[in-house]
């Protein structure tokens, strides 16, 4: 990843929450709703108690970025606290599932198990 891309990813948590609120019109408290985090999973988006300098902020975990993208890509005023937290839990599960898939040893020759064949509506005259 290039440095400028890296910098773009360094979203302050406060900004994240603010953007969520602006984007979907939910209450300012949504980021503070606790989410039960399992081992090795990132915490739910949360407002920091005192703002930390930008330079020391760790980049948000991918789950938070995905949630941000989702609510900005598909804004809806009915995305309330419960929905946001539920979606966040789902995203964490999806990311964990993706890791499990990536860890499975696959060979180049392991083809996807779907069937696809060329198609034409009528039989070629010379076939």
């Amino acid at each position: 990843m290039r440095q400028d891309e890296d910098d773009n990813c360094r979203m302050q948590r406060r900004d994240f929450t603010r953007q969520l609120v602006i984007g979907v019109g939910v209450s300012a408290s949504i980021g503070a709703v606790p989410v039960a985090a399992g081992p090795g999973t990132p915490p739910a988006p949360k407002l920091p108690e005192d703002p930390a300098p930008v330079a020391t902020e760790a980049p948000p975990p991918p789950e938070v970025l995905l949630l941000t993208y989702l609510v900005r890509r598909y804004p809806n005023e009915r995305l309330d606290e419960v929905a946001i937290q539920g979606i966040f839990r789902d995203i964490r599960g999806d990311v964990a599932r993706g890791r499990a898939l990536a860890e499975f040893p696959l060979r180049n020759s392991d083809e996807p198990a779907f069937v696809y064949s060329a198609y034409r509506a009528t039989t070629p005259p010379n076939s």
Partner: protein
Amino acid sequence: MPDTTSRAFASIRELAADLRSGTVTSVQLAKYFLDRLQKHGPTFNAVVRVTHDIALDQARQADEELKRGQDRGLLHGIPYAVKDLLATKGIPTSWGAAPLKDQLIDEDATVVGRLRAAGAVLCAKLSMVELAGGFGYKQANASFTGPGLNAWDKTCWSGGSSSGPGSAVGAGLIPFAIGSETWGSIMTPSGYNGIAGLRPTYGRVSRYGAMALSWTMDKLGPMCRTADDCGLVLNAIAGPDPLDPTSISSPWKYDRAAQVRPNASDGRRFRFATLDVDFDRLEPEVRKNYESSLEVLKQIGTIDEIKLPDLPYAVVASTIISCEMGAAFGDFMTSGDVWELSAPEDRWGGFSNLLIPARDYINALRIRGRIQKEVDTAIKDFDAIVTPTLNTEAGPITQKFTEWSRGFVSTEISGAANAAGLPGITVPNGFGARGLPTGLEFTSRALSENSILEAAVAFQQRTDWHKRTPVIE
């Protein structure tokens, strides 16, 4: 009018014999079951629509044909119903979802057409969990018809997503129904309601005209009073269909002759396998019934314990469903229609699926190929893998599934079989502490429906759990 009361829980063969002996007509049978559906269906939240006029028209035609000697087979003149995810010409198809309750797909699903050709009589479209449960419902109240109520206890769940077929067949409101399974949706309601439910090999039954939740995992199958009935119905609906490119090209026939095989004295015995069941997850009665069932199976075959290959079955199956569902219902979610669903958790439960990387989906499909091959190798020497269908009796509709289901299943066979498209059948094998049914599941290699049918029929020839009936008030 002949006494048809005793026919509520009759098998297809019994009803077919009555029709041919002239003790009852198809119209009389249709009226009888239409009445039961109208009277009792709403008390189980089992019915979306009773197709009264269509049923009587089809029944009259069946009577005329049988009278003049035109016999279409054992389903001729037999009433049936379908889960309301199958398209039916002229009748709305709701998919169990409030925002779609008036949706009209004005053609018959292939399955409906085939049952029509077999002379069966369509009496109702039955309730289901909204959108076949693909949005992650976590409790029973997830359909615009209300929570599906169990045939044996209306305070308990009928299972999902084929809720209506489960309770309607269980309560004797209809002789058989067509359900669908993407992952568990035939087995679960069949197990909880004490009926026989068959999940065919993927592609055995055309999906044309059925709601697509997951194109590569959806299966349609019969839910009936007996395993033998499942064979008869599958015989009518299976086979290639140019309208479904995933349908298996070879025809299928129910091997009636094979049913007489399972006598220990004929020298040909079954080979069953069991898996490493997590007994801690089973209710004590479920375990006891399972162990008793194994004793019955020992009369007709051998039982070996095997282990499935160590593969990520659940991860693969759930990833495939999530991604395909995200594509199938992306517009439904982003248009806002999703917010009209009944279960609050279903309203947002599909959104994360819009973001899963294509790489995850493709890799899940690649691992699926490995699953197909390695599981087939592991089970190829056996007629059937035998497991408890579910970990518990049906639980209360007022509680979340996590409070009572114990994770629903205690082995990996459910995820493995659905990921690999393998057939399975569940039959009742006893009752739990609260008097609700428990089930025994037979799973086999792809294309081996006759093996599991034969085993299940043999089990039912030696037990009478399928003859027990609930009291319907």
